């Protein structure tokens, strides 16, 4: 928690670090009132979906899919088992927002999921929490026990005849388990490998039953929408980009951290909130939406507002809202090498273009970075990335290809310099200086 009190926050509002995650504090903050409102007023699932549609809430997990629309795909009248699943796998490099929600405000997610269960006629939900920070999983279990004891989940919730139970499930650190169908496989106890779609989870999900999967932050936005109305949520942001969004800002800024701001806020404002560039250096590039999003040069970024449409128009994606800021001391070849290594390591290996292509990409970038690049490598890199993108079972292939294509597109000369001179354009001592941690700033 970097911003001590942020007047714009709704998801992270009213929190006092590690002291206020429990249910009594949550209720004091007005928690579980949305669930109570629904059950006591008899709001119908259709009415709730209409509100969520009005809110222009878009999925916070990466793809930005309109949540109200997704919920309307569920065959909620059918009497069979259906599931609601929360994606807290948060493995995308640069993303560290869901863990704060789970650590400091877990009941918000529980309430959001219970409402989703009500809307879609599910009696069971799962929250898939990544295994890297095990204490999150433990905290969520504690929160579940509190909610169960208080009657907010379980049988006959608030005496209104609504049954919904929620379970936590933890992963073991595979990025691919964040992909929604790999996540379902993993819950089922199988190897986490994405499924081919169609069929989509809404018809054939967990254990073959209709399932809706949303990101942690998506669920967390639901109670506010219920309490304040979809239009109010939409008004926080801008049309088609409703509400606030939590950004995980990392890289060469003075105060990296988690910032909840309304969608549509200028990037420059966010940069200011983060205390500006470290050491007052020049902004070189930004990856605006997690490592899978194409990189944008700093000047393009300074003209953007932080919302799905603006970033997409600029040629990238808002993704999970992980903003990776790079200053002029950054070697773009080295950065790409790091990213490509990640996708090479995290490919599930099931489909050919990703299994074979991610290794190829990484090895080529690695070679260039280590002074063994060849003149035709850049075209080959770009072409191999094109041969992966759009040809795989899941979007990891795209995620591996986009950085490569965008780095070469925007910083081609730096790559060419590397190939020709066998070393970085940015001198190594400058890079080293840029990577130093400024202890005096980190204190704030």
């Amino acid at each position, binding site marked *: 928690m970097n911003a001590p009190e942020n007047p714009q926050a709704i998801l992270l509002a009213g929190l006092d670090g590690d002291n206020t995650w429990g249910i009594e504090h949550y209720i004091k903050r007005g928690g579980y009132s949305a669930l109570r409102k629904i059950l006591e007023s008899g709001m119908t699932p259709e009415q709730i979906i209409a509100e969520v549609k009005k809110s222009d809430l878009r999925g916070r997990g990466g793809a930005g899919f309109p949540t109200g629309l997704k919920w309307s795909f569920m065959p909620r009248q059918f009497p069979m088992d259906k599931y609601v699943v929360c994606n807290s796998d948060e493995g995308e490099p640069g993303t560290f927002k869901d863990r704060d929600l789970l650590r400091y405000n877990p009941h918000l997610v529980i309430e959001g999921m219970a409402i989703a269960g009500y809307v879609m006629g599910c009696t069971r939900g799962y929250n898939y929490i990544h295994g890297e920070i095990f204490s999150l999983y433990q905290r969520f279990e504690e929160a579940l026990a509190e909610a169960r004891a208080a009657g907010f989940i379980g049988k006959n919730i608030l005496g209104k005849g609504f049954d919904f139970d929620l379970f936590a499930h933890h992963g073991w650190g595979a990025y691919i388990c964040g992909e929604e169908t790999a996540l379902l496989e993993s819950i089922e106890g199988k190897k986490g490998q994405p499924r081919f779609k169609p069929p989509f989870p809404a018809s054939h999900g967990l254990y073959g039953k209709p399932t809706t999967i949303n990101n942690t932050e998506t669920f967390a936005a639901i109670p506010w929408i219920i309490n304040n109305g979809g239009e109010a949520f939409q008004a926080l942001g801008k049309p088609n980009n409703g509400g606030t969004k939590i950004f995980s800002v990392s890289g060469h800024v003075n105060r990296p951290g988690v910032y909840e701001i309304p969608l549509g806020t200028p990037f420059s404002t966010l940069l200011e909130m983060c205390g500006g560039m470290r050491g007052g250096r020049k902004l070189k590039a930004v990856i605006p939406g997690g490592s899978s999003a194409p990189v944008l040069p700093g000047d393009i970024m300074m003209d953007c507002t932080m919302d799905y449409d603006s970033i997409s128009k600029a040629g990238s994606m808002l993704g999970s809202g992980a903003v990776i800021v790079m200053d002029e001391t950054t070697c773009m070849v080295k950065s790409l090498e790091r990213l490509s290594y990640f996708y090479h390591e995290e490919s599930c290996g099931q489909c050919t273009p990703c299994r074979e292509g*991610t290794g190829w990409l990484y090895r080529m970038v690695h070679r260039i970075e280590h002074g063994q690049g060849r003149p035709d490598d850049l075209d080959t890199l770009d072409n191999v990335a094109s041969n992966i993108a759009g040809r795989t079972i899941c979007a990891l292939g795209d995620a591996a290809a986009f950085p490569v294509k965008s780095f070469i597109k925007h910083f081609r000369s730096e790559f060419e310099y590397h190939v020709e001179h066998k070393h970085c354009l940015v001198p190594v001592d400058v890079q080293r200086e840029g990577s130093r941690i400024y202890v005096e700033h980190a204190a704030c």
Partner: protein
Amino acid sequence: MLEIEIDGQKLEVPDGSTVMDAANRLGLHIPHFCYHKKLSIAANCRMCLVQVERAPKPLPACATPVTNGMKVQTHSEQAVTAQKGVMEFLLINHPLDCPICDQGGECQLQDLAVGYGASSSRYQEEKRVVMNKNLGPLISTDMTRCIHCTRCVRFGQEIAGVMELGMANRGEHSEIMTFVGHTVDSELSGNMIDLCPVGALTSKPFRYSARTWELSRRKTVSPHDSLGSNLIVQVKHDEVKRVLPLENEDVNECWISDRDRFSYEALNGEERLTKPMIKQNGQWLEVDWQTALEYAASSLRRVTDEHGAGKVGMLAAPYATVEELYLGAQLMRGLGGGSIDTRLRQSDFGLDGKLSGTPWLGMKIADVSKLNAALVVGSFLRKDHPLLAQRLRQAARRGTRVSALGVSGEDWLMTTHARVTVAPSQLAAELAGLVKAAADIRGVAAPAAAASASVSDAARRIAQSLIDDGARAIFLGAVVQQHAQAAGLHALAQELARLTGATLGYLGEGANSVGAAVVGAQTGLNPQQMFAGDLRACVLLHAEPELDAANPAAAVEALKRADTVIVMSPFKTGLDYADCLLPVSPFTETSGTFVSIEGRIQSFHAVVRPKGETRPAWKVLRVLGSMLELGGFRFDSSEQVRDEALSGATGWLPEYKLGNTASDVACATPAAVEGLQRVADFPIYRNDALARRAPALAATRDSAVPSARISTGTAQAAGLATAKRVRVRSAAGACELDLTLDDTVPASCVRVSAGWPQTAPLGALSGTLNVEAV
């Protein structure tokens, strides 16, 4: 129906079809690796990417459902670029050393690379190397060649019913492997070799022994079980090099069992008999055919003259051909009343003359897939009928309720509706319980034999499944046929069939057991009577009574007592009791015909020339008949023999010849047995003369040296809980075996496999055994 247009051609396909299905109907080839019509869709190779109108990116044809009005291009620029891209990815880490790869010439990757690959590689990095795995004696690995299509994995999970191979690790480190320290032991494992599109999984026995383009492909029929699997035998220089399935959807689909696939090794083995031999003064001499035939003919003549034809008999394996058995029967009849039989393992012949026809499956094999419920009684199903088990497994996946009543709780690797496992002596009681349950459900009085039977929950569930609507069947397996109460058990099963409306069928012992009965090769004394009586002359046709008889010890005794024993076999066998060995063709070296368990008549040609001086048995019998101046041996071809034997029938046996309905047979009553009962199976690779002599099959886990298997509870009760080695005694003899705890063996039983010399001294397949620790 949905309309789709592919490459300009329009057609209608049923709902739920994929683009690949539609293209297949049009006869259009879309390149693919992971897709296989019998396996679930994985869509992982991405080779089948095609352009679909209005889709932003190419889609995999194998997994994309057809929507109405869809327009697909398989050769557009977008499609071909995508396909070439995938091919490049597949090749970057694949060794390009086709000349030293055993799959070369029949490699789908190689074939498609010719069309979609580039002439040189852009990949300049180091190639991946993957450690090979030991999958056992049948499958050889070259895992660096694997393209991760997961066909082998899905075959295990879906067809074989057991996931013995899986893809471990992630990304580029993904490897196909077994569970640590395990081998691939499925009786259907060889199909993975066929499924593997590259040279990652190849046949271990075949490895590096020929290039595929040197091999000629010849069709034949499997002699190893009653299914009649269609085979392709691959031949080089008149030697069988490899056996593959010939697809026949109604019989073996596109699979064969490992027994069908690897038994061929015996054909080229050391044990082949290639010259006639006769024994003189205790010495075996190689002789020419003329001498041997004269010897055989005069021996038969002499014994007939001295003792009468009633003392002459012929015992044939149930996989002898129609032609061989017909001429064998002619020979015995010609001598004036000799006996012939193929049912060596049977001990109760109470059904003889009582059945409405030749016992058979009671339905077409293909119809097994359509059953709603099936009860299999007394069968080691997976090992006795590997592909029928597979068919039932697929049916069970689709909802068929398969139940089992038997003497072994071995896992059938399919979902079963109910299973009852009892000692052999209890089969009658359990069947009676089923009859009673069925009568109760129907609200009719149970037949007297079942009136006081006790009905278990499982019996009620099974009976109900056999009564519920839809096609249903009761199949009797080898355990019933070999049972001392075979006729009585049949009568009970028949009652059950009558009360439930289920079809009664037999699973059949050998490739031609139906044919044997039809051509009169079960006449005169039955094998038991022959061995028990004063048999003076015996002809053994492919049969090996020392392993195959219901009581091997008694059989060998009888043969040793006889004046003459003429062995007609491809193998040097019976040296201790025979006095004449005639080398006759195995199924690959003769033309012939098998009638399968469904009544299907399948004729085949020789695929190679007879080895050495070997001759087709039908020709040998023809000469013997002529030498003995018996009538009815004037045939020019095996086809003429077949036509006479089967009264001209081709394709299918006329239905009136087949029938499983017995009249006038009393139901079995449960026998009270004290002590430990023997449960005997014929292990899958100890079941016929060929399989027994195939070295690779002999190295599998299924061929492990026989042990005395006993459940933990029974071992404790018998004070054998800690015993390692035991002495097993029967009324006939004894042997020493390792003791294995095995909870699939029913209580109060010891399972001691037959088909092994080690256990032959125990004699009868049933009865009680005494087991003591040594």
